[in-house]
């Protein structure tokens, strides 16, 4: 039996600290919002597969900031080549989590992931050159390991095996999107990390 996604989000929430978070669309975004209401998070509603690229761009731009990517298996598979790019850069401040439920969850009735039950994403990541690429199935193990992952002064790639949800919400639960998502997220980065994203006239 794998973990429940609510357990996973609870553990992540406990350890976030100051981390800037980028969530893939679907399960990662919906469940992180439900667990945290965190506005230092970019919640994706499109661009499936490329939230990890956004997180990489942020991590390279603010090396002093911890940056978390909360990805999903469906999104990861849309951009598996990105693992090569991420492995080459391997920013020490970037922790990449993959919620792996082996289904396309956001459909009315979930459908199986491509190559369901046979894909070892941590194995793919290691083969791409990532030194710290692991899979966790049990919440006790995750609780124990998470402190080490969050504090590690090096890049980490962690696959979190979870059960599919039975009560997945039909629409994203967060109540803002689009341009407001950009402004809220980036204004928070400006305040916390002293970066100037927008000029004096707001663009």
């Amino acid at each position, binding site marked *: 039996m794998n973990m429940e996604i609510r357990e996973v989000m609870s553990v992540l929430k406990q350890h976030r600290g100051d981390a800037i978070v*980028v969530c893939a669309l679907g399960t990662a975004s919906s469940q992180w919002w439900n667990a945290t209401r965190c506005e230092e998070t*970019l919640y994706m*509603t*499109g*661009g*499936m*597969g*490329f*939230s*990890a*690229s*956004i*997180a*990489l*761009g*942020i*991590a*390279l*731009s*603010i090396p002093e900031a911890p940056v978390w990517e909360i990805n999903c298996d469906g999104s990861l598979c849309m*951009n598996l*080549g*990105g693992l*090569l*790019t991420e492995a*080459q*850069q391997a920013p020490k401040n970037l922790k990449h989590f993959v919620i792996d439920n082996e289904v396309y969850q956001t459909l009315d009735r979930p459908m199986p992931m491509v190559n369901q039950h046979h894909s070892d994403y941590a194995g793919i990541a290691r083969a791409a050159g990532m030194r710290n690429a692991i899979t966790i199935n049990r919440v006790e193990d995750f609780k124990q390991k998470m402190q080490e992952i969050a504090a590690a002064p090096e890049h980490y790639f962690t696959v979190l095996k979870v059960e599919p949800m039975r009560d997945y919400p039909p629409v994203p639960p967060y109540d803002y999107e*689009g*341009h407001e*998502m*950009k402004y809220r*997220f*980036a204004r928070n*980065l*400006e305040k916390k*990390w002293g*970066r*100037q*994203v927008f*000029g004096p006239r707001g*663009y």
Partner: protein
Amino acid sequence: MDIAALIHAELTKCRVTLAASLPDDWVAPLIRRVDADPAITHVRVARESETIGICTGAFLAGTNSVAIMGTTGLHCTVGEMMAINLRHGIPLFIICSLRGTPEDYQIYQEQQGRRTFPMLNAYDIPYVILEKPDDIPRIPDVYNHCRLQKRPYLLFLSRRLLKAGQVQ
């Protein structure tokens, strides 16, 4: 005349400190210049769509960036530009070779020559073409215009411009 060096100098004026690229042979000299600049973090990608995400992340973190690619790669990035940059109003500065023009003799660029501008017009993505070396100093204004437009913005390098670099 080193066209890549002139473009690189203008990118420096734009305070670009991050570049994400995947080469075609026309933009390769510029990518080599950027890669050799210690002031620029250069990210080599496996597919051009990654540059869209990486440069978007850089923008959201207050870093000036550039994506560099060929025309074929540009056609691979459209879905990401629509869902990420157009949807959120996020500027994205792209330098791209202008393939498929009458000066391009490669048969495999023919469709790119026919489809690129109609595609950009359909998505309301602005572009500027650099045709000659005297156009290169326009880059900072174009970069600023990209910020104002809050969307992807193409700077095309024409064959004519790149050929000018071969004449000493």
